[in-house]
């Protein structure tokens, strides 16, 4: 059996795209050098694009005004004075933190439920994934109607129960809640599936040992499940936080950043400056700010992840 597996692996390796397709292009260097070259080849467009964005951020660059004038740090100074950037940074932080916390908590809870034995479990697992499998722009457009004062599904239910029709997208606080909860509803399913795979990888013997030591369900979850899942949870927090910082579609289709700029996210601001009014220089400066925030989240997250692994 083992020899069959080895032979199978050999066959796969000999015909893998890396072996037969891309790597031979790098000539006769040893494999690790070629892999490094390939990695750089894949990363280079991103690095070049980032450098170009950084370069553009020092210019007043607008195709409409036909300008490409060097302005030094003016775009970055303008960032610090722009009230929209203040408001947007505040909401981006609020949205990222709230959404990530809710997604992780609900994701863990759903994963735990889906890990139990019950009828039609596989169907339930598939249905759970539906919101995640839908395009964000579709979800957000539907949410715009769901939260509508007169025609919205949510207000219909609330009105039947209380006779009230809240103004979800007009009120500052509820608009932020609407954006966040829509994002949570859409993306929690993905985390739940990842956490479910993590739960299934925990050996049952550990739970049995914990039971012998007198741990009940809550304690075994706290002392066995969570510590073993922690690296996965932290990985997912990094993923989720980065994608929340970069989030765009829900705000674009649900609130247009309103009321006022209450739900404007940084990437939405890049879109407004870059694609709506074609201020490419200023948009690049905002994009660089966004880049450094994402970088910070990534570096901090990686530090936490490494510490979590060391504890295991």
């Amino acid at each position, binding site marked *: 059996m083992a020899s069959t597996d080895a032979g199978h692996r050999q066959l796969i390796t000999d015909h893998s795209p890396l072996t037969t397709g891309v790597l031979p292009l790098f000539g006769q260097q040893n494999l690790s050098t070629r892999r490094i070259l390939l990695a750089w080849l894949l990363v280079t*467009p*991103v690095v070049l694009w980032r450098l*170009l964005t950084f370069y553009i951020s020092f210019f007043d660059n607008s*195709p409409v005004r036909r300008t*490409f004038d060097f302005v030094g740090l003016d775009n970055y100074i303008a960032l610090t004075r722009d009230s929209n950037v203040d408001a947007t940074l505040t909401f981006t932080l609020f949205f990222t933190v709230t959404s990530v916390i809710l997604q992780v908590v609900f994701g863990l809870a759903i994963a735990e439920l889906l890990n139990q034995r019950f009828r039609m479990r596989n169907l339930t697992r598939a249905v759970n994934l539906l919101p995640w499998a839908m395009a964000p722009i579709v979800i957000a457009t539907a949410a715009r109607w769901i939260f509508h004062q007169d025609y919205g599904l949510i207000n219909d239910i609330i009105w039947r129960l209380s006779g009230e029709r809240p103004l979800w997208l007009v009120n500052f606080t509820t608009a932020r809640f609407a954006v966040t909860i829509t994002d949570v509803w859409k993306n929690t399913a993905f985390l739940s599936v990842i956490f479910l795979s993590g739960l299934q990888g925990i050996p049952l013997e550990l739970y049995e040992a914990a039971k012998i030591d007198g741990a009940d369900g809550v304690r075994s979850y706290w002392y066995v499940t969570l510590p073993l899942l922690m690296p996965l949870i932290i*990985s997912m927090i990094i*993923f989720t936080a980065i994608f929340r910082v970069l989030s765009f579609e829900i705000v674009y289709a649900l609130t247009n950043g*309103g009321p006022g700029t209450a739900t404007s996210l940084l990437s939405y601001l890049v879109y407004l400056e870059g694609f709506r009014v074609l201020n490419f220089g200023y*948009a*690049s400066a905002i994009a660089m700010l966004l880049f450094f925030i994402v970088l910070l989240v990534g570096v901090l997250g990686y530090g936490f992840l490494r510490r979590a692994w060391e504890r295991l």
Partner: protein
Amino acid sequence: MSRKALASLTRPVSRRAFLKTAGAGAAFAALSACAAPVAAPAEGTGGEETMAEPQELNIVYWADSNDFFQGVIDQYQEETGNTVNYEVAPAVYIEWQQMMTTRLASGDTGTDAFHSDDFQAAIYGAAGWLSPLEPVVDLYDIDLDDWPQTLIYDVSSWDGALYRIPWGNDTEIFFYRTDYFEEAGVSPPTDWNDLVEIGTALTDEDAGIYGIALSATIGGQLGNEIQHWTNQGGGAINNLDNDGAREALAFYKALYAEHNIAPDSAPQEDYSSVFQGWLSNKYAMWWCWDGFFGAMRTNEEFWADQVSAFLPPMGPDNAETITGCWGWSVVASSPNQELANEWIGFTARADVMKQQIYRGRVPARVSLWADPEVQDLAPSSPFLLDLAEAGGLVKARPVTPSIQEIYDAAEQNVHAYLTDQVSLDEAVTAAMDKINPILERDLGS
């Protein structure tokens, strides 16, 4: 391949290694996504590739209804023997604008002429992406005096060059439910105080009926509201820091927040939801683009008995309403300049332009407005004629190449005021702090 190399490719990946690699990969993917666009260098017109005898014309048409347009194309093809490739633009205005911006900024040679709006004529014209049309006017002997002059000089031209020939007229008119007015025993309002009184008489919140519809969502619609109300107060969307504009904005907010003659959901309403509400008997009055008036003809019974229009009531400064248009522009990078010009000449003809009445819209040439057939099928034309005869009652929006920036700045700050996040003074100050440098850049003043 060496054994070591094979082992390197086939060894199992630990969960830890997988997470590290996946994390790093995701971080890179995410970082690469936060890049901003870069302007393509502006180059020549591309006219050097002009074909000797162009036979195919590529146009993009944006409209709320496109059925009638095939008739226009058929007529053109029959008269000229040329073929028209007709592309329907995205219905959502912002998407449409982005589509054309991307194409034109990249020196598109696949579009010869397109249906452009007020903003596009100035923005794209100033960017050098549109061909000046004075030679076309001369070549096809187009009598520009037959158009409302504000449409020609204020929103189709920039820096002395004409970039668009207006095709369909759009003017904001006050339309109202005649049956509601009759039932309440009121007449159309003549000034703002009247508007509140009559609106109050028409509002029945328990029955879900409001005196007036307001569409104050961000994304262009609030900008139009700001423009026409502040204009009546003596200001404008780019001139908010004065008593008249402040009074207008306070009055606008009071319509739903104090007088309750509009629903308090006004700051989230867009044209689509208001029109839906209008057709569901929710509103008694609506000051909006006359195209909606034409669209009501889809329900002729409703239209015939229940809807009419009146001239805008007098504001503190004037009784003007805003006007604009859609028209045809020629793409500067098109290799088919002559053919595109021929299309402009063709669509500027009164008999061709008139065909827009089959979608309920008023053609841009004033001489057509008194035509009985136009008055029958484009129901707002009699009111536009009244406005034209009254004189000085229509005003185009203050369009400059940075009008989109001005709209965004005004909308974001006024919307914050309308939703109780900031005071009126704070909103006006913040908006004008952004708008003044833009105006200085555009107008040098």
